[in-house]
């Protein structure tokens, strides 16, 4: 079975990685690039804990082959903070206590970031819909939704 040499940009860093055909983006991030913030929950595209941004759009990284990412730009949870400053969704999820065991949190942060990128002023329904693919078995979602709302309003204040 063949290996492929691919070039990707991960969290702003250019990387060349040799990957077998069947290696998923999730495996590449965790096992080749040691970016273990992205979690493997179900490995079937259901739980969302492996969500990353692929060319700006959220994907389940367990459902994308690494070789399909040739030339792509990827952002993982490790790439959300800029210059030591947390992304608004990270800051608000901390403040609202939207984390218990934390396993789903990296995926939720990425989905929330992607939502606010495409819709800076989401309704509560928009937030619910954007998090449908991120299962959390601890928090009951209320604090997570509050955190995303708060992040949206803080972003709007900064932008104003």
């Amino acid at each position: 079975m063949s290996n492929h040499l691919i070039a990707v940009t991960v969290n702003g860093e250019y990387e060349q990685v040799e990957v077998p055909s069947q290696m998923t983006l999730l495996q590449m991030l965790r096992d080749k690039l040691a970016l273990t913030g992205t979690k493997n929950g179900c490995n079937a595209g259901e739980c969302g804990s492996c969500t990353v941004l692929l060319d700006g759009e959220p994907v389940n990284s367990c459902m994308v082959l690494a070789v399909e990412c040739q030339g792509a730009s990827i952002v993982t949870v490790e790439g959300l903070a800029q210059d030591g400053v947390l992304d608004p969704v990270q800051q608000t999820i901390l403040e609202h206590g939207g984390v218990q065991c934390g396993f789903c949190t990296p995926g939720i942060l990425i989905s929330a970031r992607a939502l606010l990128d495409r819709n800076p002023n989401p309704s509560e329904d928009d937030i619910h819909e954007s998090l449908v693919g991120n299962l959390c078995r601890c928090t009951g979602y209320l604090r997570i939704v509050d955190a995303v709302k708060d992040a949206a309003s803080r972003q709007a204040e900064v932008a104003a």
Partner: protein
Amino acid sequence: MAIDAHPELPEFDYFRPATLMDASRFLAQHPAEARPLSGGTDIFVRMRDGFWHDKYLVDVKNIDGVSELRFDPTSGLSLGAGVNMNRVIASPQVQEHYPLLAEACRTVASYQLRTRATVVGNICNASPAGDTIGACLAYGGILNIHGVDGFRQAPLASFFLGPGKTILQPGDIATTVHFPLPPAGSAGTYIKLGRNTWSDLSIVGLTALGYPDPAAVSGYRFRIVLASVAPTPLVAATAQDYLEDTPPSPQAFKQAAILAQEACNPIDDVRGSARYRRAMVRNLTEKALNKVYKLMENRG
């Protein structure tokens, strides 16, 4: 404690052909071993679960313009095999002219899965539960298929043969699905009954599209497609015929719903019993027809 995740993918070779002809030839040369890959959201699950053992996945989503979404005000809408569902949902032209398609796409799984999942893939996977297939049938979808002898067209109405089975032959790649302009004054709905409000596979899926038609005795025609209640997506033809002859009314919709119920042939499975599905076909058909009629009336 070990995490009970699905296993990793088995070994295979990934092949990205330069042209559609290269892809068709390769697929035809490896009939039982190679499969076209688009978004992969069904393929990877089937491979991990040990149902599929392909040696080669042939990535067809980036070649020869198959990633285009095109709308022409005279000929209609074409969706390439690489067009993901989020693009369909976000397209102003789909929202304006084919809102039922956008509505159906929105019921599929989650946003991040729809970044990969495609309408053409949903069609080719040929699941009786495919959420977007009803809208594609109701809008009169036609597939463009590229095989070793070049392009041909196939109407969706005769595409499905059984669960996961279609008329596609080794070497065939569905490159685009085309929809003619929808009938003037049409309105539609997709009612998906799942185990939860969002994201689950359907227990029953009910697609209905209605439009005024002076040539019909009743003045209206309806297209009704049922998901998850037969080996293939099922067009409720007797119910459609009945509504062509019978003027719309709550009683007519009740009777059409009974005809749809009689047409379906569901099974018991983990998501619901056959008996429950039959009852839901009747309820949801009646509900969908009333809703569609109201939408048409409000518009007209």
